[in-house]
């Protein structure tokens, strides 16, 4: 067994060495991510080559079943692949809410027909998904979503509004929480549905953030027809699917905490010895978080993690990432505060401001602490 794993590591290392273009091993910014989709275009030939090579082995989703086009790797091999990619700083070949969020929920709750229809295009990067969760009146209190899905026999008619929908203006399909039973208690009247963003009545409007960028949108539904076959899981029990998916989303967001501050360290002990101390203490936490992330991922993939542990990881990881950006800004001084010009044309400041959203999106830090207190520590409810 151990020999097999050693052999797998050896082969994987060699394969990555010859298939991962050097350009795909350089540090990346948000603009370097490949998201696929109907309108997806590769930034350059290296990105295309890398994506296609990984796809040929099913490694855009290394641990998904091979029957849908995934890599079929067991947790130990999937970990080896992650380690070997990380060793050469290989970029992920495909960024996708389909992979990080919807896919795991479909694998657990979807019908065979839904899996066969939706998973292969996610794996191949052909369909780009967005998440219709938050609404103007349903933020931390997500279960109070008010978007209505009215039963019209063989289909629903959906009316309402979502907000903070990441990249809704670039997405092909949406997975969406809608209220199918307005008379039931709020957690028991929600359904989880999928529909094409090209359906008549769907419109989006990007929201300009403090960073100056617009990754989030308002999404409007005006008499949108959704076939009944697009329901995932049980009718009115969409909250179960939503929560399961949130676990994966939180795991994804917690990875924000994996960043380092090393690149900003030149001469800092002379200029600002107190900042050096703060950075040193940050480095301790960052290293501990890397270990924690490894442990959590191992437990998570093996199905051994407490279902609420992703809340703890999300809380710790995002608070850490915010602290990292505060240190980067402090170390960078006026250069980092630049909004235009300079070598990075405001990228530091934008990344710093963007990081403030980490502890809000996917459930605020305070919501995560509520969940940990209740579900892991078994503290009493009020």
């Amino acid at each position, binding site marked *: 067994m151990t020999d097999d794993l050693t052999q797998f590591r050896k082969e994987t290392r060699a394969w990555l060495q010859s298939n991962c273009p050097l350009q795909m091993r350089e540090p990346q910014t948000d603009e370097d991510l490949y998201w696929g989709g109907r309108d997806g275009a590769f930034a350059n030939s290296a990105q295309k080559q890398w994506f296609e090579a990984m796809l040929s082995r099913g490694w855009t989703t290394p641990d998904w079943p091979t029957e849908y086009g995934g890599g079929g790797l067991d947790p130990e091999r999937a970990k080896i692949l992650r380690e070997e990619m990380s060793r050469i700083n290989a970029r992920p070949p495909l960024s996708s809410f389909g992979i990080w969020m919807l896919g795991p929920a479909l694998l657990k709750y979807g019908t065979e027909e839904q899996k066969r229809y939706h998973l292969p295009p996610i794996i191949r990067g052909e369909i780009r998904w967005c998440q219709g969760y938050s609404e103007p009146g349903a933020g931390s209190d997500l279960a109070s979503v008010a978007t209505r899905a009215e039963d019209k026999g063989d289909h629903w008619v959906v009316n309402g509004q979502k907000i903070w929908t990441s990249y809704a203006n670039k997405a092909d399909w949406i997975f969406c929480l809608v209220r199918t039973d307005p008379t039931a208690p709020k957690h028991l009247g929600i359904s989880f549905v999928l529909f094409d963003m090209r359906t008549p009545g769907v419109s989006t409007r990007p929201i300009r953030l403090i960073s100056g960028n617009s990754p989030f949108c308002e999404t409007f539904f005006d008499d949108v027809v959704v076939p009944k076959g697009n329901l995932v899981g049980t009718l009115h029990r969409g909250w179960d699917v939503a929560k399961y998916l949130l676990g994966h989303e939180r795991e994804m967001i917690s990875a924000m905490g994996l960043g380092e501050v090393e690149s900003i360290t030149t001469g800092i002990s002379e200029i600002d010895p107190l900042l050096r101390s703060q*950075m040193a203490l940050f480095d301790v936490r960052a290293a501990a978080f890397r*270990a924690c992330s490894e442990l959590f991922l191992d437990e998570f993939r093996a199905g051994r993690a407490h279902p609420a542990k992703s809340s703890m990881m999300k809380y710790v990881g995002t608070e850490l990432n915010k602290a990292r950006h505060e240190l980067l800004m402090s170390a960078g001084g006026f250069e980092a505060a630049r909004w235009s010009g300079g070598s990075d044309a405001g990228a530091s400041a934008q990344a710093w401001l963007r990081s403030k959203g980490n502890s809000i999106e996917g459930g605020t830090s305070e919501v995560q*602490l509520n969940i940990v*207190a209740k579900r892991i*520590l*078994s503290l009493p409810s009020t």
Partner: protein
Amino acid sequence: MPLYHDDEQTMLQDTARGFFDEHAPVSHMRGLRDAKDPAGIAHELWRRCGEMGFTMALIPEEDGGLGLGHVEAGIVQEAIGRNLTPSPLLATAIGGVVALRAATNDLRTEWLPRIAEGVAIVALALEEGSKHAPDQITLKACKHADGFVLNGAKRFVPHAHIADLLIVSARSSPGAEPMLLAVTRETTGITMRTQQLADASLVSDIEFDDTVVEHSNVLVPPRDTGALLEEILNAVRVGAAAELIGLADGAMERTFAYLRDRKQFGVEIGSFQALQHRAAHLYGEVELARAAVLKAQRELDGGSGDRSRHAMVAKAIASQAATLAVQEGVQMHGGIGMTDEHDIGLFMKRARVLAELYGDTNYHAHRLASVNGY
């Protein structure tokens, strides 16, 4: 390989916890303290640790041990931490064993089997000041016909007063490579002054006055002694970190149970969000530290080139997490937490000493920054 414990390690954890929960719970420590026990430990318990194999984890099989690793040694250390058990296991079965198994001379065969059996106790005499500074060695070892003559002092050495063997760092001249000497406590020219720390543990200041040490008592590793000293320190730092995790768990369990039970304003105080958030934050901090300690143990066992860095991180974060656990523990217990009768205060006192032992958070964060190039 997944980072979590495998089945055998999980079994060992159950065994170790079961053993110390039953035979050496906090009341055991309290009993030794109240009786002003001169040894500060129960020799009978130490012998039974040998029977259970707890002293043998890091001893190679050819020397009568189990040939396991730092993960296993840490599991036992964690069980000790949960129960605040006074035990020379850290210095003996982790520090002492890592030192002695590297010896190329008879020291190895002479001492390792005795440690394995739970007979011999080892103390690490590596500090000369009040703060951890293992590089500052002024204890002088002058060449002598039969070996070396020691002059100088070591301070705050845990369990030295009951140790069969002292592992002592010295230098032949300022700036010279450090030496490690394995000296029996009864050697002529050694005097000890033993005192109690806040956690009721006993530490000794040791004076060396023309103490003659024979050549055979010089610890001769295959490579340089400085590297061996670093190896020993890595091992005891990670071991102390594991003990701190156990301690933090013990403090948290008591505190969270209190939050669930204690009623004020007609409700359990654990239903207040102000306390829930602090409790959940604390849980996250301890989980962070637990993973860092596990990672460091694995890196030590794998002989990774990065193991010193992982050891620094583990000790730094475990000290911090345990400190938070006991501070929140006493505060959340309210008035009862301030009493000697309640155990939570004992956790606070032990955490203070363990946080200091082999380098506190600031010490290791500072070193980490230097290693990281700033």
